[in-house]
Each structure stands twice: as C-alpha cells, then as structure tokens.
C-alpha cells in the first residue's frame, strides 16, 4: 500500500466485515431455523440462537420420516439424484469438450471452422429460450423422468470447448512433433501427453460445471414429473407450497442447508482452481 493511514485501514476492515456479515446473514438465519421445532420458528420474532432440534430435523428430512405437506420423497434420495446429475454433467461436458477441442486444434479437415462455430453459437441458445421445443424432443425420445433426460441435453459446452481449445494452442508444437517421430498416433498423444498437461484446467472446469449441474432448476422442473427424480434444488420448491404458517420452515431450512452444502464445499476446498477456472474461461 502506498500510504499508511490507520483510520483508512480500520474503515477497510469495517466495510469488509460488514460485507461478510450481510453475505452470511441469510444462511445463519436458515441454519438457526433448522435447529428448532416448527412451532418455535413461527413465534414472532423467531429465536436467533441455535436450538436443540438439529439432529431430529436433519434426520427427519434425510430419511423422509417428516410428515406433512410436500416432500413425500426423502431429501437423501433427492441429494443422490442431484449428485449423480451434477457429476454426469460435469464429467460429460469435460469429456466431450476435450475431444472436440483436440479435433479442432490438432487436425485439418474441411468444415473445421464451421464445427467450432456450431459449438460456439450454442452460447446464444440457453435452455431458457428454447424450453418448449427442447422439452418436446426429450419427451419424444422417452427421456422424461430419467437421468439421461436430466443430464444429456445439458452436456454440450461451448465454454469448456473454448477453454480447452485456448489451452491446447499454448501447448508447444515440439511435443506433438516428438510424439509423431516416436511413432505415437493421435490418440496415444492425446492420452499420454495432452491429458496429463490439462489436469489443472480439467479441475477448474470440474468445479464450475459441477456447480452448474447441481444448481439446475428450470430444466429438472420441465423433465421430471415423478418426485423420485427430483433434484434437491427443485425439491425445495414442492415444500414451500403452503402459506407462511403451514410450511414446516425448520425442515425447509434444513433442506436448503443440505442443498447448498455440496457445491459450497466444492468451491471452498477447490478455491484455487475455481478462481482460476472462472477468471480464465470468461476472459
């Protein structure tokens, strides 16, 4: 820093601490609510210190033993659906994008540029602008209420293809030449040289795409009609159907905490790759 002013330093920490508090406040309240009975929360104002019902609430939502409106399917099952979808989406996106980027960078063939643009232009067609017809396609293919329906339509990735393309371009030509002289074919080169070099980028991409997959909402809303295929982010919606007093807010908040835990952990534990991946892909 250029100058030292203790007043300014104090202000800096004050503002940052305030920011952190405001960011954390909704989650704190949600956590507190998830440790009380439903009756304790509808008291106005609700308590702001943890209660004793934490274990009871969380085990009730996870196993589905909670009675009342909404969740007929245990949240444990929904978490499983979310986890499977998020992992399939993340791994699938990375796999097919690595292959396409490899083809586009390391081969010359007619239609190469066209293929790149065909993939790239999908950035302009988010799910939200083509929900009706895409739903039609998925339903014609009989993929409603299946993992295939939840994941495959989301698996194309312009961002991942673009990132890997940019990265492959920075890989020195000498590596490919040496591999060719040593008699390695393209796939051998891909698996033994290119893939190990891409590990950092793959990790970064995984964090971003896992969160993307886990947080899907509109798409599952369209393609799932059976509760056993609800991902957790969407399952919460069916729990808040009643009015203020009818909702079992303690269980809803326990579900909300469970729903944000896996992606939040991924972000915090893989922070370095996440930040790198985010800032690199978008630039």
């Amino acid at each position, binding site marked *: *820093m*250029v100058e030292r002013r203790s007043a*300014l330093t104090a202000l*800096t920490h004050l503002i*940052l601490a305030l*920011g*952190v508090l405001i*960011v954390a406040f*909704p989650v704190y309240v*949600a956590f507190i609510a998830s440790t009380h009975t439903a009756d304790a929360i*509808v008291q*106005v*104002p*609700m308590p702001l210190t943890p209660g004793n019902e934490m274990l009871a609430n969380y085990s009730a939502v996870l196993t589905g033993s909670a009675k009342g409106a909404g969740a007929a399917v245990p949240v444990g099952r929904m978490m499983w659906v979310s986890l499977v979808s998020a992992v399939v989406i993340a791994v699938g996106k990375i*796999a*097919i*994008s690595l*292959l*396409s980027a*490899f*083809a586009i960078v*390391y*081969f*010359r*063939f007619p239609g190469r540029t066209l*293929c790149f643009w*065909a*993939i790239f232009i*999908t950035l302009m*067609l988010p799910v*939200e*602008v*083509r929900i*009706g*017809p895409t739903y039609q*396609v998925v339903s014609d293919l009989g993929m409603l209420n299946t993992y295939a329906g939840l994941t495959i*339509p989301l698996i*194309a990735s312009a961002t991942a293809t673009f990132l890997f393309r940019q990265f492959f*371009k920075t890989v020195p030509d000498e590596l*490919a*030449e040496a591999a060719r002289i040593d008699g390695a*074919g*393209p*796939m051998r*080169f891909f698996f033994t040289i290119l893939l190990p070099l891409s590990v950092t980028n793959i990790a970064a991409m995984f964090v971003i795409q896992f969160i993307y997959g886990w*947080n899907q*909402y*509109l798409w599952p809303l*369209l393609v799932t009609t059976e509760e056993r295929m609800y991902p957790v982010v*969407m399952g*919460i919606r069916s729990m*808040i159907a009643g009015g*203020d007093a009818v909702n079992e807010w303690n269980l809803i*908040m326990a579900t909300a905490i469970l729903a944000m835990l896996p*992606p*939040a952990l991924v*972000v*915090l534990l893989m922070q370095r790759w996440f930040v790198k991946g985010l*800032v690199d892909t978008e*630039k």
Partner: protein
Amino acid sequence: MEKRAVFRSRWLPWALLAPQLAVVGVFFFWPAAQALYQSAQLQDAFGTSSEFVGLENFRRLFADETYIASFRTTAIFSVLVAGFGLAIALLLATYADRVLRGALAYRTLLIWPYAVAPAVAGVLWLFLFAPAIGIVSFALRQLGYEWNFLLDGTQAMSLIVMAAVWKQVSYNFLFFLAGLQSIPRSLIEAAAIDGAGPWRRFRTVVFPLLSPTTFFLLVINIVYAFFDTFAIVDATTKGGPGKDTAILVYKVYYDGFKGMDLGSSAAQSVVLMAIVIALTVVQFRYIERRVQY
C-alpha cells in the same frame, strides 16, 4: 496461432467431434429451429391442427399489454440487479485489494454464495422476508414499516432484486479483485507521489483501468438477470403480485407450460433469442477491440 504439427486422418476428427455435435444438433439447433417454426404457426384450442400465420404471433405479442409490461419489468429488474451487484462488488473488491493481511480469508468468506443455487437463494430470502414470520419483516414492522411482498409489487420486486444481487455479488467481486490486482503498482505509486489521495487515485487511475472488467461484468450481469433468475422468481414471488415480477423468462415458461399457448410462447422464445444474440455480439465486438490495447 495455428499449429504447425498436425495429425492426418479422414475420419478421426469427425469421430472425436461426433458426441458434441450430436448433442448440439439434437438439443440445441433442432429445438431452436422448431421454436422459429412454431412462432409462425397458430394452433387450435385442442392442439390437433395448426396453420401458418407468418408474423401474426409477433404482432399479437407486441400488441399484448402484459408482454410490454413484462419487458418493462425485466428492464427495471436487470438495471437494478446489475447496478447494485456491480456497485457493491466494486466497493468490497476495492477494500479487499487494500488489505495486507487476511485478504485470502475475506475472499473465502465472500465468494461462496456463488455456489448457492438461485432457487435456494430465493428460498433463504423468502424466509427472511416472509410477511408473518420473517425476521426482517418483523424488524421492519417494529420500525413502523408495513412489509408484505405478497400484496405490494414494489416490495416483491425489491425482494427478488436483493436475492439476485446477493447471489451475484461474489462472482462480480472475484472479477473486480482480479482486475484490481492486475493494475501495476507503479501507476498508483506515481499518482500518490503526485499528491493524489485514495479517492482521487480511485477515480482518475484505478476506475478507468478497470473499465474493461466493468463492461464485461455489465453484460454478464444483464444476461444473468434476464435468464438465470427464473429460479429466484419462481421460488419466491411466482411472478406476483398480479404480474408485477413476471420477467420475460418467467412469462415464456408460464405461457408455454401453464397457459399452453404454444405459438405465443415460441414467439417469445424467438424474441429472447434475439436478445441473447444481441448481447453476445456486443460482448464479442468489445473483446475484439480490447485485444488491440
């Protein structure tokens, strides 16, 4: 930069591209073409027959007052989300950039809302602001302010703006912080030697140098407000009260899946596509320009 060393094969590149192109073709281009086709069709009430009506759906759409109102709602919503989201993130990033010790801790504590699903963010804020039991509604009532977003459209709008901004600030923060950290220290020191105080340095040196980041984030935030906030609206206000928070994406979903008005929904999809394409083009033109500096 093109590769000098390339592999030769007639079929291999196509085999490698096949999975991606198949998904893109079946789930992106085909539905987009269908949307274009349906937008020019009018179905009868039972969906048994349809006839070609040209631009009739679009004409009806733009003559529809609720659609124009939805445009206005979306515009207000995007401006508020992008404005507050960028301002708060810039404030926090500027101060985080000043911190010598504990910078990583602050970053860690500020970035995790990025991981929270928009729908979950909506539910959290809904709980804080629920009219009868919400803790913030209670505090507002104590201050003599009657809060009920189920009745008051302005309050409903501020609720979804708060939830959307809360979720987006962490993303903006990361980019601003990266932008600030890439500004050469020597420039700031030179300004300081010339006698410029912290505010003056921010206004005349730092902020202009951040303008590429700011512009990029502006586009991203508008796209976010247009499309990714569907879940927030659906989880909190469901477009209500009345149609006061029915943003465009919500209306496409509602008209297509609840109202079963396919022609209108498809026409709305086409309008949204035009908006995304316009935004993407703006973004790319600008990236091309930036490469030259």
